[in-house]
């Protein structure tokens, strides 16, 4: 039973069979750790398909209405997109360092790194909503506030640009929702660590929060070139 678990170098030491962090259904901490991360990965596999539906539709409509998508993409602010990419990558780095600190049982370092990660996530959201407000003032919000005869659209067909903006708002909106959930998750982890509830034995809570955070980062890694950089920016 514990043969495979014992070989996992990331799991807590198997010797702790009497740890208070061990739930009764598990034999040892290493097994509990493996179950936690496995469960999170199964959830993330469903998340791949959740976002995958939007990506599939995006590929289909982009190939059908390429000029409209390129015109819509040129209406977005590439500098904002690049800035958000760098901020999110930095937050992923501090998240990975958080997991590292948790694994070594460094409570204060863990709290600081979690707070930095949350801060970077909030900066990301701040830029995102600044961008949304720009799009509102530029009349590029489909359905609510859209003028198809804008100079910003650079001659792309209005309805196809509107379709692109639908994808822009749904994909970035769903991503932003995941960011908000992630920030909530990390806030709970910070409070638990502050109260001394996170130890070397049950750091899998930090580990699975990190997996979620990195997943959201990976989604953005794809959203940035797919939404902001269609057809390049050299024109």
């Amino acid at each position: 039973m514990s043969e495979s678990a014992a070989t996992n170098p990331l799991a807590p030491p198997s010797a702790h069979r009497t740890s208070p962090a061990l739930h009764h259904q598990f034999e040892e901490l290493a097994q509990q750790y493996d179950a936690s991360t496995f469960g999170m990965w199964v959830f993330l596999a469903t998340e791949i398909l959740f976002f995958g539906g939007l990506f599939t539709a995006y590929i289909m409509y982009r190939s059908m209405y390429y000029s409209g998508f390129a015109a819509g993409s040129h209406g977005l602010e590439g500098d904002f997109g690049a800035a958000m990419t760098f901020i999110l990558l930095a937050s992923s780095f501090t998240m990975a360092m958080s997991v590292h600190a948790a694994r070594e049982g460094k409570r204060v370092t863990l709290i600081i790194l979690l707070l930095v990660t949350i801060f970077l996530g909030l900066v990301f959201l701040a830029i995102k909503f600044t961008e949304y407000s720009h799009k509102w003032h530029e009349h590029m919000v489909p359905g609510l506030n859209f003028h198809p005869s804008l100079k910003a659209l650079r001659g792309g067909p209005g309805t196809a640009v509107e379709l692109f903006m639908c994808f822009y708002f749904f994909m970035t909106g769903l991503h932003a929702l995941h960011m908000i959930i992630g920030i909530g998750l990390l806030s709970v982890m910070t409070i638990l660590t502050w109260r001394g509830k996170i130890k070397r034995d049950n750091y899998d809570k930090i580990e699975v929060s990190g997996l979620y955070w990195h997943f959201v980062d990976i989604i953005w890694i794809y959203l940035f070139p797919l939404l902001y950089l269609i057809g390049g920016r050299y024109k």
Partner: protein
Amino acid sequence: MSKEIPSVRTYALVFVALLLLASLTTGVAYIDLGPFNTVVALAIAFIKMCLVGLFFMELLYSRGLTRIVVLAGFFWLALMVSFTLADVFSRPWIKTPGP
């Protein structure tokens, strides 16, 4: 499969590589490569995803069972994308009397 626990040095190196790749994506967008702009951008995104997955999400250090779950996720995504596109793009092949 490495049995070492990832070090701070590893995380830092991966982070620097990710920043360089992100800069590269932004920089390449300003060069006219024709249709290869998209190919290059997606290739860089794929490399970034692998770096985050293997090192930050510790797939390099995790068990085979976890990796199977990840591959299964991408396999079903590939099914969804390929079957959808196969439907959409093969529709003009058969001429049907339209309205």
